[in-house]
Every structure is written in C-alpha cells, then in structure tokens.
C-alpha cells in the first residue's frame, strides 16, 4: 500500500517536472534584446503614474496577438512578438523593469476592448496597432505615432488585380470591427468580416474571396508565411497613425512616452526594432514619424 503511494508520488512529481520543462521550451529569441535601465532617484516626478509603476516593478501592456509583424503570439511562444511589442519593451525598460521578465504582463487586447481596458485600469499601456483618432482621444489618452502605415491589398499570386480600385463591388476580407474594414467599404468594395487576419488569408488562398486588405506591414507578414501563393499589390490607400494608448487619469504619461519614443528615434533603437520585426530584404526602413504634441 505504502509502496504504491510512494510510486504515485514519484510519478506525479516527474510529470510535474516534465510539464514545467515544456513551459520553458517556448523561449523565443525573436526581436531585440532590451535591457532594463537604472532608474535613479527623482527620474520620475513624485506621485506620477510612471513613478508608481517603477516603484511597483510591474506593468501590464495591452497588445494584439493576431497580427504578424506588429503584435503576434505564436501558440508555442510565451510572449508575443512584433513591432508593437518592441516599442513596448523600450517603454518598460525605461521604467527600470526587465522587459523579458515575468514582471511584464502581456494582456491580449482586441480592437473592441482597448478603451474599456484602459479606462478600467486593467492595462497600463496599449500598444495594439492602435490608430490615433479624435474620437478615441475623447475617452483615452493617445500619443505618438511611432509608426505610420497604410492599407494595401493581398491577393493570390496568380491574380491580375493591381489595387483596391479593381475590387469595386467585390468582396474584400478584413477583421470584423477594424478600421481596415471601414476603409475597404469606403473604397467601394464589399466588406467580408472575419475573426482574424489569418482566416482572411485562408479565404484568399482557397478562393472564397478575391482579396483581403489591412496594413501593408501585416500583409507582408502573411505573404511571407505563404510564399509564392499570395502577393501584396497596389498603393497604400489609407493612412493609419499607430500610437500608444494610456489612461486619461494619468496625463503625465504622455510626455514620458514621447520622451522615450524621441530617444529611440535618435539612438537607433526604433530602427533596430523595425528591422527585427517589420523589416526584410526588400523593405526599406522608413524615417521615424513626427510625434504629436502633448496637450
């Protein structure tokens, strides 16, 4: 009796250890290695949100999980990767928190819940391909932009479509509730809502829809995943200014975010982040965008 119990205990311990080992196996080396900075006394004003976060040593960041190149979490990865995540790492490091440690919680935010999460304080910052709009600025703080992108079209490799103009009255897939889908409709195409961008790509691959459309950067990522079957065509037909979202309750964060972004533009961190995620052999690294003034 005792013997079997001991055996069961050994087996259970072994199983637990092997499961723990599985958890560690997902280590991903993609992206730039960002080191936490030393925060000396008085760097952040007493009582500011930044000082609170630096003091607590913990931060929650809202990112997307389904946009290759910007914010994407692989099923096997522990942390998401992409340009949004790289910029978030720079901000986190400035607070003296190690971006690759458990002190950073990467919360998935979808398009609909970015403002509610910020308002409720469930996330401290949102970097989730968050385009800056006046409407959103009424309820949350947004600053940046740290990236300016435009929308293009992804079609199957043997298609003769050359841009959005060829798709008038045709179905074009994009994610339900996204600005991309609105822009598609505004251009005269018929929007076909989907849950994720990969679902759209699947629909283009199997011919259910002619084309899909969203930020060029994401499309390049999808085309790279399905090389030889999909291609990105056409000029950019919209301009999205991707910025950082913060809560209106802590307006002091705006200056700090702009400061960190400005610094990364100057010391080359921004460029390195771009090249590690959105860049490629035939992608030219753009000039860093001009930041908005804080109110």
């Amino acid at each position: 009796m005792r013997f079997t119990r001991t055996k069961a205990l050994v087996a259970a311990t072994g199983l637990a250890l092997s499961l723990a080992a599985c958890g560690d196996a997902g280590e991903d080396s993609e992206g730039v290695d960002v080191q936490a900075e030393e925060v000396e006394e008085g760097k952040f004003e007493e009582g500011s949100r930044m000082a609170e976060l630096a003091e607590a040593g913990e931060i929650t960041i809202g990112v997307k999980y389904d946009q290759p190149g910007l914010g994407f979490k692989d099923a096997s990865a522990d942390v998401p990767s992409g340009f949004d995540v790289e910029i978030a790492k720079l901000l986190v490091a400035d607070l003296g928190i190690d971006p690759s440690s458990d002190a950073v919680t990467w919360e998935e935010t979808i398009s609909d819940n970015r403002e509610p999460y910020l308002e409720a304080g469930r996330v401290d910052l949102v970097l989730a391909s968050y385009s800056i709009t006046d409407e959103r600025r009424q309820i949350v703080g947004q600053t940046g932009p740290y990236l300016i992108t435009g929308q293009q079209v992804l079609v199957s490799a043997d298609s003769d479509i050359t841009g959005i103009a060829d798709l008038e009255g045709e179905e074009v897939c994009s994610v339900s509730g996204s600005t991309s889908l609105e822009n598609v409709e505004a251009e005269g195409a018929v929007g076909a809502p989907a849950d994720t961008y990969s679902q759209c790509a699947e629909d283009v691959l199997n011919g259910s829809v002619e084309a899909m459309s969203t930020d060029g950067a994401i499309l390049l990522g999808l085309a790279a995943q399905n090389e030889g079957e999909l291609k990105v065509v056409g000029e950019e037909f919209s301009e999205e200014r991707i910025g950082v979202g913060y809560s209106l309750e802590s307006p002091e964060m705006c200056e700090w975010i702009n400061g960190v972004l400005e610094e990364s533009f100057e010391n080359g961190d921004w460029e390195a982040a771009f090249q590690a995620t959105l860049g490629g052999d035939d992608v030219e690294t753009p000039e860093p965008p001009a930041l908005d003034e804080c109110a």
Partner: protein
Amino acid sequence: MDAVLDNLDAVVRAFTYTLLLFLISGVLSLVLGTALAALRVGPVSVLRLAASAYVTIVRNTPLLIVLIFFRIAAPKIGLNFNFVDVQFGDIRLNNLFTACVVGLTVYTAAFVCEAIRSGINAVQLGQAEAARAIGLPFAGVMREVVLPQAFRASVPPLASVQIALLKNTTVAGALGVFEAFARMRSLNNDYATQRIEIFLVFAFVFVVLVEVLSFIANRLERRWRIA
C-alpha cells in the same frame, strides 16, 4: 444614438442580412428537419439509423465548428458555393452567405427534427393505426394524419429552435457576412464614445425581432388549438 442614425442605411442592410440568413435557413431547416423526423419514425431501419446518426453528430457539434467546416474546411476539399451570386440592390447573396446558410440549416435541422419527433410522439398511436387501417401508405399516414397533428404539438419547441436560429445568425458575422453583429462591432470601433448606446440599440432590435417571432408562434398555437 447618432452613430446608429448616421449609419442607418448600413444598419438596415445589416439587419436585412440577419433576417435573410434567418428566413432562408429557417425554411430550409424546417424542410430538412421534417424529412429527418419522418425518417426517424419511418419503417426503413437503415434510414432510421442514418437520421439518428445525423442528429447525434450534428446536435453534439458546436455551431461555430459546423459553420467553420462549410466556410473554411469545405473549400479545401473542393466543396464551395462559388456558383451562387445573387444581387438585389445593395444586398449580395454570395458564396460566403451560402456557406453560412448551409451551416445554419444543417445545424438547426437536427433540432427541428427532434422537436417534430416529440410532436409525433404526442400523436396517439391509434391515429397512425387507423390511417394504416384505411389503407394509406407510410407517406400518406405521415402527410395526411400524423404530421398535421404533430406540427401543432411541436409549435412551442419549434418556436424556441427558430428563435435560437435567429440569434445564432450572429456567428456568421465573424465568417464573412456583414450582418448585424459585424456591423455593431464596426460601429463600436468607429464611435468609441457611444459604445453602450450602440450596443443597446442592436440588442433592442434583436429583442423586437424575437418578440415578433414569439407572437407569431403564439398566434399559431391559439389558432390550431381546436381544429
């Protein structure tokens, strides 16, 4: 409120899609479900087994999986609906719409079948025996005697099934049909300050639609009570 009123044409179009999804799959699922119920109580054991296998498999599969099968898996194995392309004004019934209708029909038919079978069980055995005695074949027994009575007894469960179908159409909003749910998400994205109003308006329209359905079911029940 402004968000909805400014985009009234888009909202109306969205609810048109919702209603079309509901009406087409509703009618088709009633037809398919009735046929399945007839098979399940019929005399041919192979068909009886086939119909009950259908109900078991489809009823135990989540709707989303059924829809994803017709929308994404089926085109991979060459089963697509690209031949469908009907257009009335702004409303387009295309391959994506058809795939969703097929998925909703297949799913709902299993529930319709069971609702009608419960109605059939409510018809006294003597009725079927009497119909047999005057020489009606199985189809005649079902069509002339059993099903008319069974439908009356199944109105309440059928109404529930159809109400569920009306609400299930929202799943198509994530699979290529720009119906009410997808439109609501779009408006939510555009008008971040008016989320609650937008949500309430869409919820209210759904409540009204379901109330209309309940009212019709209620009338049918009353009308057929004594006949």
